[in-house]
């Protein structure tokens, strides 16, 4: 009788333990899947931010390349005609001193380098920091229930780690977003300046064509126009030369200054045109 009772209690304990184990395992699995889903969501968001950044940087790189190989190339032809006129400082075109033959030579080199470049997407500097999933956790026991408790503990730890990973991914995503915004702002300014730059080049070319090499044929207004074109070339060149991120992967302060310079230049032109 006593033996039967002990047997019944033992069987009862085993059944109870197995049910408890199933329950804990199920709970652990749910927690685990939820954690991985959080990690996946964060990584997907980060990947999307990275893709957007790559597109923005690629768009800027392509635009810079296009401006160099079209507008700048045309400007250099006009510039060669312009220097032959032999303006001196007292003629009111101080911009010619700023835009020296050395700068023109530098542009020639850049243009020939760009023309030899293949039309492939540019890979940007990897600013991503790696993250790890690991750590020391868990407990070692032999019973089936203890194993399940351990699974649940692991799942809880995984859940906490998922939060950390999600936070890290969010941080990286924000860094990507900052680069995207800076690259897009630079592309927009460069596009607008380029439209004006092309008009300036065409006007300058036709003016030189009309007035010839004798500087006395140029009125004060003409000289102002020539100066504006050279000035614009300088601003466009400074945008072409400014990197978005430095070798450390940091967004450069200079890129912001260049964007501001470009915007200021656009405002001035807009203001001058309203005056007309």
């Amino acid at each position, binding site marked *: 009788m006593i033996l039967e009772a002990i047997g019944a209690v033992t069987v009862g304990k085993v059944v109870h333990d197995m049910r408890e184990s199933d329950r804990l395992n199920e709970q652990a699995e749910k927690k685990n899947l939820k954690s991985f889903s959080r990690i996946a969501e964060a990584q997907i968001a980060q990947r999307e931010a990275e893709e957007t950044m790559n597109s923005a940087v*690629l768009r800027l790189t*392509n635009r810079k390349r*296009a401006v160099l190989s*079209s507008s700048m190339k045309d400007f250099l032809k006009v510039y060669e005609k312009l220097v032959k006129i032999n303006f001196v400082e007292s003629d009111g075109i101080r911009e010619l001193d700023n835009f020296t033959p050395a700068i023109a030579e530098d542009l020639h080199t850049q243009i020939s380098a760009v023309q030899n470049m293949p039309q492939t997407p540019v890979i940007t500097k990897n600013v991503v920091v790696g993250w*790890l999933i*690991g750590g020391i956790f868990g407990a*070692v026991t032999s019973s089936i229930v203890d194993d399940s408790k351990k699974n649940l503990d692991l799942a809880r730890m*995984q859940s906490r780690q998922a939060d950390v990973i999600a936070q890290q991914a969010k941080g990286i995503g924000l860094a990507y977003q900052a680069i995207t915004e800076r690259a897009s702002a630079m592309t927009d300014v460069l596009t607008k300046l380029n439209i004006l730059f092309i008009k300036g080049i065409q006007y300058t070319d036709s003016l030189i064509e009309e007035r010839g090499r004798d500087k006395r044929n140029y009125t004060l207004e003409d000289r102002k126009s020539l100066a504006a074109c050279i000035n614009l070339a300088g601003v466009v060149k400074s945008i072409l030369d400014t990197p978005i991120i430095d070798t450390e992967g940091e967004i450069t302060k200079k890129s912001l200054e260049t964007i501001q310079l470009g915007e200021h230049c656009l405002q001035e032109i807009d203001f001058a045109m309203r005056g007309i």
Partner: protein
Amino acid sequence: MAKKIIVSPGCIACGLCTVSSYIEERPDGTVVPKGGVVLEEEEESEFQRIVDGCPAKVLSLETLFSKSSQEIISQMERETEEFALPVPTMESISYKEEYMNINAPTAVYGEYHYDYSSYNRAKEAAKQAIDKAFYSQRRTAIQNVINNYQVGELSRYFEYKETPENFYYLANQSALRILEQWGQEIRLCKPGVRIPDRMLMIQTRPDSKLKYHIQFIKSDILTFADAILAELSDSVYSLSSYADYCDIDDEEVYAGEGMFGRSKYVTKYCFSNTSEALREMKKDLEDACRNSFTEKVVKQAYSCVKYIVEGYSKDLQTELNTKTREIQKVL
């Protein structure tokens, strides 16, 4: 004569033509004509200036010839009938080595602690230490690899999102291009007829028919970590066999003074070299993933992706069919 804009290959992405509302910029800065645009004579002369200003000379205008209503309807029916999204191959969602990031600790706490009274106890302690540090987390480590695979290869099938890689978005775009083409033909054929905007829009989204398959690639697939782990069920991959890589050392440790004032020493044991055990464990886990990932995970994922693509293709075809009937009525 009405004209349409052509952008030939060779666009240098200078952005000059983006001032026109008929031109659309792609993410890389190059341009395409906006879908369905038909330029009338007065718009044509305005756009010609942009064509002339293109430094790469890739912009041009092409004269469009009008089709009859019946020809357009036949074209719509034929294109709807033929519409099908390309089914991806299994290679297109294959496992890549970059998804493998199993991080194992390089050593565990407790090495060289002469705390154990016997060889067996030290061995047991080594076993517990490597279990705690990595052995017990092997399933999670594999799930992490599957998670990377999901993010890299399957996430574009999770939900509709307007991002350049999203499967549903790209599929809708391909159907939309067909609709835009129809819109262009109709505008040419019947300039007076106005097709409501909603008829030229694609509204299909992944619906409940695809729910279970999406759920599978989004979440359930992680449970296949067990199938990969089962590859390591052999006794050579047991905890004890990894513990055998650990060294057990003994040392005489001072244990106070004896009965006659003599110093007493006892032999104590410690474990060390867990790094080799952990390294082996990591290597075995990586090998198991590499060898069985395609069989255990990619194949299952592929059958779901194939179902999703075919199902969504049919849904889009149904929408095109509905649009065809609606536009037919308007015409």
